[in-house]
């Protein structure tokens, strides 16, 4: 660095001819003013976010029935992991996670097709987005009729000569969760497709063209050029979908299965409700809520790290 040059940016106060002491005082004043002006926002965040989270964490270590609470301590967490129902519920969440690649892959494929402007793409773009505009409760009611023994699914199977496959997925401990997952995949189709269409529209077309000039086929172009550029969008869609699957399909479960049979479709989110609101075990509900938060945050962090390593 040449002598006499400083990395410190010129201060407007100095330019105005103020002394160093005045500058320091003004800086401190500005900092104080900043803090004072931030106080309302900080108070809001503390009251609406920090305090409730702190309370939830505190109550997670109590037996709180909504009115009175008794301190249990960290043992509450250990006791929960001895509960076979809780382990079953965790397993259900894990199984639901298996649907995530499908929730990503199908919309990605549809987005590619729509991006290529296949015949009728404008219609299909609207049609695919339609499920997003329907409430979970309505989706649930439709799904119940779809999966019923005398419902649409079995009628369709009969119509194509597969009447011997009579299913009653919602009445089955092992299939109810699959029915939920399929419904989730359908309901997320619109959101994820729109995310991917937006991503594809934002890509630099010259890279794909260069690859084609170099002799790459369409599949290679997608696999080697387009998908790597889409990683950020895939990451975003994945996180949004995991959040939805873990924290936003309560109404779907409520309407379709009530969490049964035999906890076969009870997820952690629904178990929070069952404990807190059906059994008035708000302490256990808070505990499950804290765990749900940790799990979702953990999955998101791992997923971001994995994809970042690949980029």
């Amino acid at each position: 660095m040449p002598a006499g040059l400083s990395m410190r940016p010129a201060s407007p106060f100095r330019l105005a001819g103020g002394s160093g002491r005045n500058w320091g005082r003004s800086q401190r004043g500005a900092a104080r003013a900043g803090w004072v002006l931030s106080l309302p926002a900080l108070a809001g965040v503390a009251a609406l976010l920090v305090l409730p989270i702190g309370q939830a964490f505190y109550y997670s270590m109590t037996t709180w029935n909504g009115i009175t609470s008794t301190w249990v301590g960290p043992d509450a967490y250990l006791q929960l992991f001895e509960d076979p129902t809780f382990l079953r519920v965790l397993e259900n969440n894990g199984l639901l996670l298996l649907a995530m690649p499908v929730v990503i892959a199908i919309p990605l494929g549809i987005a590619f097709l729509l991006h290529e402007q296949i015949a009728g793409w404008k219609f299909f773009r609207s049609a695919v987005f339609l499920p997003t505009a329907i409430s979970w409760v309505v989706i649930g009611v439709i799904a119940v009729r779809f999966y019923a023994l005398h419902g649409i699914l079995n009628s369709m199977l009969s119509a194509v000569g597969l009447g011997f496959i009579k299913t009653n997925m919602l009445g089955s401990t092992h299939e109810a969760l699959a029915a939920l997952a399929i419904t989730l995949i359908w309901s997320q189709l619109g959101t994820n497709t729109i995310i991917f269409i937006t991503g594809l529209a934002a890509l630099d077309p010259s890279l794909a063209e260069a690859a084609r000039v170099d002799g790459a086929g369409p599949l290679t172009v997608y696999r080697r050029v387009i998908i790597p550029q889409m990683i950020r969008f895939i990451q975003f869609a994945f996180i949004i979908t995991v959040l939805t699957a873990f924290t936003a399909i309560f109404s779907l479960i409520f309407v379709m299965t009530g969490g049964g049979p035999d906890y076969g479709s009870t997820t952690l989110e629904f178990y929070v409700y069952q404990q807190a609101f059906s059994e008035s075990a708000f302490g256990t509900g808070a505990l499950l809520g804290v765990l749900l938060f940790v799990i979702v945050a953990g999955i998101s962090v791992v997923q971001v790290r994995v994809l970042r390593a690949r980029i």
Partner: protein
Amino acid sequence: MLRRRSRLIGGLSVIAAAGLALAACGNSSSSGSSGSKITLTFWENYGTQLSLLNTAKNLIHAYEKLHPNVTIKMVSQPANNYFALLQASAISHTGPDLAVMWTGLYLPPYADILANLRPYISQSTFNNIEELQWGAEDFNSSKAILAMPVDAQFYMGFYNKKDFAKAGIKQVPQDWNQLYAACTALKKVGVTPIVYGSASASYTGEFNPWYDFSYLMIGALQPSQWEDLYNGKIAWTSPIVQDQLARWHQLFVKGCVNPDALTDANNLGQFISGKAAMTTDDGSWDVGQFTQEMKGNVGAMPPPFSVAPQHGVVYFPGDAISVMKESQNIPAAANFLAFMDSPAGAAQIAAAGLIPDIKNYQSSNALNSQMLGFVKSGYTVYPMLDNVTQPQIVNVGYQVLPALMVGQTSVASAVNAMYVKHNELPVAQRSSYAAYFGG
């Protein structure tokens, strides 16, 4: 000076008199008998249960007619988280004046937010109520009264008379063997013997196994032994419980039950239309609908889940109304409940097809009379099993028992889940019914 003082005294007297008059007005109006306008808010969780909804509407209409200064606003709340909402509203002081409350072990967790009705309702009214203790503190009717029963309810099975005649069934089944035989006969003539589903559940819209489970335990245990299930002297895993549940599951195995027992949303429709001959997970709340749509073609039958002839019946005031402790109109709200359990109120309840919970009531409805006849003819009266079982275990039952019925889980696994939950409960919640208060 003296004149000024006498004027002062006179003035104070006028103010005092006015004050007393106002106080008197306040007292009389707060009981709802006359005076200023009172609006009472009433929360209910009846969902689509028309008979209960109509009962509430009838009662309110009749009461408002008698007390023009009182308006009762009925507010529907979701059935599944009703009690949590009620509790939250009480904590935040935004609750109603009147609220639907369930009796038995559903009551104690909310005892702290409910008003004691004893000071506001006459003893003669209390004396007239059947099984009042299930709405009282410590389940002792001489203590605080926290909930006033609306109607006396039966968990009950019903059968289609034409279907039985078509299958040549001359006698209503009374035990397991007769039930299996009836099942075979009905299947031969193309009728589903027993239909289950989600439509007959009184509140939740899910398959409710506790109606059948009550009769399974009636078939195996005496009323006094039910408290042993509660306190663990008879474990949920005991052979007597497992044996009954295994026989229940056999109904599904033998094809006596519709294959979509857990999910059929039209099970009542199938019974009413005659496609199915019996429904057992049902109760007195559907009598109005059956009477209207099936006329004389329907009969009541205690589900015969017993090796010996079934001789017990669930007869219990499960549904009640309470006054919230934080209500500003406790006397007026209590006055409404006193009316509900008076002869005038009973007429309104009966008009909706239900059985008023007053002693020696005689119903003009044939099905209701038949059910009351079981009690009069000496059938052993039992409470609703889910009202005398810890709610935590009831919730487990909602999950595991339907799965057991359709063979999705084993008997041993289902009862073990209930047993485990029982052991997790604090000791105070598994000693005596009364100890559940404050436990």
